[in-house]
């Protein structure tokens, strides 16, 4: 480095030397970060690093030191597999993870348990061949129909209803735990238990039940008779029929 450029550009030399110094410092820091994973105790021996008097935490930190305040700034922490969010978990993860998730969701969507009970595998539950009426929260006509099949899949449990609306067969799947399904009522039970789980033969013209409108009409009429004067509102009147038509999964 001769004197002439130094005289003309005195800062040029300073810049180069500063760059070198910075590079050196960065290199030193990198080495320190690499090494301090195993040697946390001699961190205070290194003058480049801030001193940490606290005991080492449970988890491994990938450390970043703040350049201005010279304090430890952690980017992220790596926890051992038995801890959740910094606290050691007491219980191990459940065996049946999906099952417990479904149970959690069902408890949330059906706090009273009425919907679960209506489509459980019990004697009182709805079965294929029964006539159900599903009421929607979003207004519209309630859809009634004979149950062709019940699809039991945890929170995705659904029921397939078939009816005739103006000479045209209509089939609808309803999700049982859907909030839009305001109520499910049993209009008529099948006289004898169906010996099939899925009554797909009811689609054939020979076995087709046709419209269930008259059944629904009769049921509504009977509900009005049994309820006390005020007109059948809700399941109170339905219960009067000796438990034949019951369970409305209504909320609010």
């Amino acid at each position: 480095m001769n004197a002439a450029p130094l005289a003309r550009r005195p800062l040029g030399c300073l810049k180069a030397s500063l760059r070198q110094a910075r590079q050196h410092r960065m290199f030193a820091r990198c080495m320190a970060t690499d090494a301090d994973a195993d040697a946390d105790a001699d961190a205070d021996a290194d003058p480049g690093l801030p001193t940490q008097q606290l005991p080492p935490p449970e988890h491994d930190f990938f450390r970043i030191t703040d350049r201005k305040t010279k304090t430890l700034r952690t980017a992220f922490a790596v926890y051992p597999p038995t801890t959740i969010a910094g606290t050691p978990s007491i219980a191990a993860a459940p065996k049946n993870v999906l099952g417990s998730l479904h149970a959690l969701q069902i408890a949330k969507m059906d706090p009273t348990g009425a919907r679960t009970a209506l489509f459980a595998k019990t004697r009182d539950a709805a079965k294929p061949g029964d006539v159900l009426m599903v009421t929607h929260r979003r207004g519209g006509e309630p859809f009634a129909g004979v149950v062709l099949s019940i699809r039991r899949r945890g929170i995705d449990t659904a029921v397939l209803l078939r009816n005739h609306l103006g000479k045209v067969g209509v089939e609808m799947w309803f999700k049982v735990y859907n909030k839009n399904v305001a109520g499910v009522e049993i209009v008529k039970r099948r006289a004898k238990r169906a010996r099939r789980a899925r009554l797909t033969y009811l689609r054939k013209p020979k076995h087709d039940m046709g419209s269930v409108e008259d059944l629904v009409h009769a049921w509504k009429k009977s509900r009005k008779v049994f309820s006390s004067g005020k007109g059948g509102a809700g399941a109170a009147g339905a219960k009067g029929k000796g438990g034949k038509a019951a369970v409305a999964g209504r909320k609010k």
Partner: protein
Amino acid sequence: MIQLKTMLNCIDNSGAAIVECCMVVGQKRHASIGDRIVVVVQKQRGALAEGMAASSSANKVKRGDIRHAIVVRTRQKVQRRDGSVIKFDDNACVLINKAGDPIGSRINGVVGSELRKKRWSRILSMAPMQA
């Protein structure tokens, strides 16, 4: 799944009884409820005795006419936003003109409520029920 050659019932009083799909309007493979198609009238309503004068006076469309139509029922299942699914036992449509107004003045039979989402409120208001 309405596509080329699908035969549909026409459920309005335009005079067509059975129509055949000859094109699906728009960039799609199959038409579903609420989609627009082009149809050929295959069978006229009340064309039993081949009394041409009597039938054609009431009917607005003739056999062989090419018209636009809106699908209102499909055999194929249609899933809704809330997870419920609807399926009809037949394929049916309602004839419209180029502007999108229904040719008939009445609809007999149920229509799918997907029409509301696709902005066919004229057809929905004419229908006796929707499912």
